[in-house]
């Protein structure tokens, strides 16, 4: 009996993680029919049992949220997808070993830019993750990555930029021209894990200077 090659039913099974939201995604194969159904299992590295993911059994969509099941930062995980087509053919594929600390991407920070007459204040808001401590406290990115810091740039003109940076959440660019528009970019960075977010961009116009009217 020659085993039928069914690897064309399923491909690219992997985790996509940002800010510790861990989504399992996959693609159907070139030959798979639209009525193919998929079932997801996951396991902790080092353990023997696979667990069926409730809510992702015999589904037709090609993604499954495994955030809660893969939320322990000291654990590493695997997931696998089984595709079954109407003809009963099936294929199973597994992810690489997944570590949320290593693989999660950091989203741009959430920032409020407050223009004044001769300065622009930037307040970075905490970024909460789906990760909870034992007593239910929800962790922020800053809680998880001790060396996370912010790097801010204010574009003054084509050649001149002002830079600020640090772990604090409040920053202010001083010495600006009143009634002028500026472009600010703010990036989160975690050196230990070589992570850097895409920039948060804010445009702000300084206020007219009332003191001399």
């Amino acid at each position, binding site marked *: 009996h020659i085993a039928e090659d069914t690897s064309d039913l399923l491909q690219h099974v992997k985790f996509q993680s940002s800010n510790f939201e861990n989504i399992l995604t996959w693609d159907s194969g070139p030959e798979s029919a639209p009525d193919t159904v998929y079932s997801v299992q996951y*396991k902790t*590295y*080092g*353990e*023997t049992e696979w667990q069926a993911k409730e809510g992702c059994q015999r589904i037709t969509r090609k993604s499954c949220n495994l955030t809660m099941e893969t939320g322990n930062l*000291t*654990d*590493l995980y*695997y997931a696998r997808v089984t595709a079954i087509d109407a003809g009963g053919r099936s294929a199973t594929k597994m992810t*690489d*070993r997944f*570590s949320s*600390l*290593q693989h999660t991407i950091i989203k741009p920070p959430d920032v409020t830019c407050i223009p004044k007459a001769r300065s622009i204040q930037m307040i970075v808001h905490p970024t909460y993750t789906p990760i909870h401590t034992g007593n239910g406290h929800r962790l922020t990115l800053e809680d998880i990555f*001790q060396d996370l810091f912010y790097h801010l740039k204010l574009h003054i003109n084509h050649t001149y930029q002002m830079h600020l940076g640090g772990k604090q959440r409040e920053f202010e660019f001083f010495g600006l021209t009143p009634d002028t528009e500026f472009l600010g970019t703010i990036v989160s960075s975690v*050196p*230990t*894990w*070589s992570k850097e977010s895409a920039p948060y961009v804010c445009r702000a116009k300084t206020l007219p200077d009332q003191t001399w009217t």
Partner: protein
Amino acid sequence: LKTLHLGSCMITSSLQAIQSGFSEIQDRQPKDEIIDLRILRKTQPLQDTKPAGQCCLLHHVLRLYLDRVFKNYQTPDHRILQKISGLANSFLTIKKDLWLCHVHMACPCGEEAMEKYSQLMSHFKELQPPAAVVKALGELDILLSWMEEMD
């Protein structure tokens, strides 16, 4: 540079450089197919060891990697061998600093540290040597995250 506090032993190390070196070979080394077994287990992490024994446990784990993992890693890819040699040199530097702590009586090997190390070794020996080497190298990110928590 990061300062690692291991009981009364304090050393500095560039974990980020080691992590980067490891990341460069991670995708190019043979896949660890044995996913039901883990050598560096959650039950024996460095950070849950009593501070007094942390230096000793780390010293022994680094010696395991130097003497039985890096030394026995087989690959035709000389670039990977180069990276592994870089990792080994980083580990040697840390091990030398730990030895200095030992000289200054700041790296005692208590019962708990030795018990954890022997458990870890038993997991390593459960596997055939080539598989154990691949698995241990694949778990370098676990060791680095343990060390990362020693600040």
